[in-house]
């Protein structure tokens, strides 16, 4: 990449520019000009990695999580069904939570709402893979399976400066602020911690058997008599549902109505799976 400066900091305290761990999204985003970066810092080996009960180092790869017996079923399954083996080997959980949408208009750098423009090309155009919730201004879909799982698992994010619930990492883009994530400048995710459920699951509908982003992914986690639900692929951010009936509040587009059908079925099945 022309002009990209790659640093290898000795510690997390002195990294400059963008943090690079697995790079499975960031590298291509920079190459495609979708993210500005003059400098990236290779922090892969510096990030905390591994599991301590329900506390996960942000540098833990999806492959690590897929292979761990300790990890709650929803997260383990979400990792297992995500991406490809190589991408799971490379991609970290921290990076995965921050990945950008796969909306083709956004990825092809159309001057769309999410890029700071004034219209959502997907709403008016080809949107079969797009959102059914939170889609008034931007119809992009959030592609992360683990994010939905962690949202249902009541996860907390611990950065280099604060801790907050995972739900607060995400926001719908607005006229004033088109970001879908709420990290501060150069803030670094260090750990993710979730609440161990009594039962959890992740169900995913995709276009081929593997290596495909979620059309709809449903994570369910049961805590006592209460079940938490979160969906991937249905909104610009991972989408928590208070209950199955909240599906009635969906605002599908003509080409995404089928996603609502899928969501109803998968939510019902996920609830059954966790014994709700």
């Amino acid at each position, binding site marked *: *990449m022309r002009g990209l400066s*790659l640093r290898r900091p000795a510690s997390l305290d002195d990294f400059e520019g963008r943090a*690079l761990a697995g*790079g499975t999204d960031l590298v291509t985003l920079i190459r495609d000009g979708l993210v500005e970066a003059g400098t990236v810092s290779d922090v892969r080996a510096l990030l905390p990695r591994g599991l301590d009960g329900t506390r996960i180092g942000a540098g833990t790869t999806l492959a690590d999580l897929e292979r761990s017996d300790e990890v709650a079923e929803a997260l383990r399954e979400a990792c297992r069904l995500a*991406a*490809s083996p190589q*991408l799971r080997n*490379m991609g970290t959980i921290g990076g995965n939570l921050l990945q950008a949408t796969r909306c083709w208009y956004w990825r092809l750098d159309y001057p769309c709402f999410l890029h700071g423009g004034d219209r959502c090309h997907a709403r008016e155009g080809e949107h079969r893979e797009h959102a059914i919730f939170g889609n008034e201004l931007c119809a992009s879909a959030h592609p992360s399976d683990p994010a939905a799982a962690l949202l249902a698992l009541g996860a907390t994010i611990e950065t280099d400066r604060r801790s907050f619930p995972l739900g607060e990492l995400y926001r719908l883009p607005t006229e004033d602020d088109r970001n879908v994530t709420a990290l501060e400048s150069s803030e670094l995710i260090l750990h993710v911690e979730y609440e161990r459920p009594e039962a959890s699951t992740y169900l995913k509908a995709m276009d081929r058997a593997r290596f495909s982003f979620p059309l709809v992914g449903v994570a369910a986690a049961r805590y006592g008599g209460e079940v938490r639900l979160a969906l991937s692929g249905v909104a610009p951010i991972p989408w928590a549902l208070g209950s199955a009936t909240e599906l009635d509040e969906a605002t599908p587009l003509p080409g995404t109505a089928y996603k609502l059908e899928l969501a109803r079925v998968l939510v019902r099945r996920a609830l059954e799976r966790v014994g709700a």
Partner: protein
Amino acid sequence: MLELTINGGRYALETDPARSLAEVLREDIGLTGTKVACGEGHCGACTVLLDGVPTLSCITLAGTVGEREVTTIEGLRDHPLVDAFVRADALQCGFCTPGQIVSASALLTRIPSPSVEEIRHSMSGNLCRCGAYPKIEEAIQNWRG
């Protein structure tokens, strides 16, 4: 100066560390067995091993490899999998084949007798447009010859 260990050999290269590992392998060192078919991490043709872990070299910046050992298809040319692929006819045009063998070799290191499900799950990141998948699976099952 970029220092890399590739197939057991040590290399020192004057090059931009922000170039992809695939580019450095193919153009600077002449190891063209690793193929680039998409350049963005979607097809698996560029798969190499970093410390034995299947990794996409097209989206790996050369400067991030560090001390990790790089293994390319050239480093696996005497692996029994090569003969297994030949016997099973597990290739047609052959463009994806180096990546397939690299991924498969890592699977077999981890699980010497994988089940069909394990094979399919572990190999689903290596696309083959010719559709040699059934025979690739057979080759992996019969790798010992």
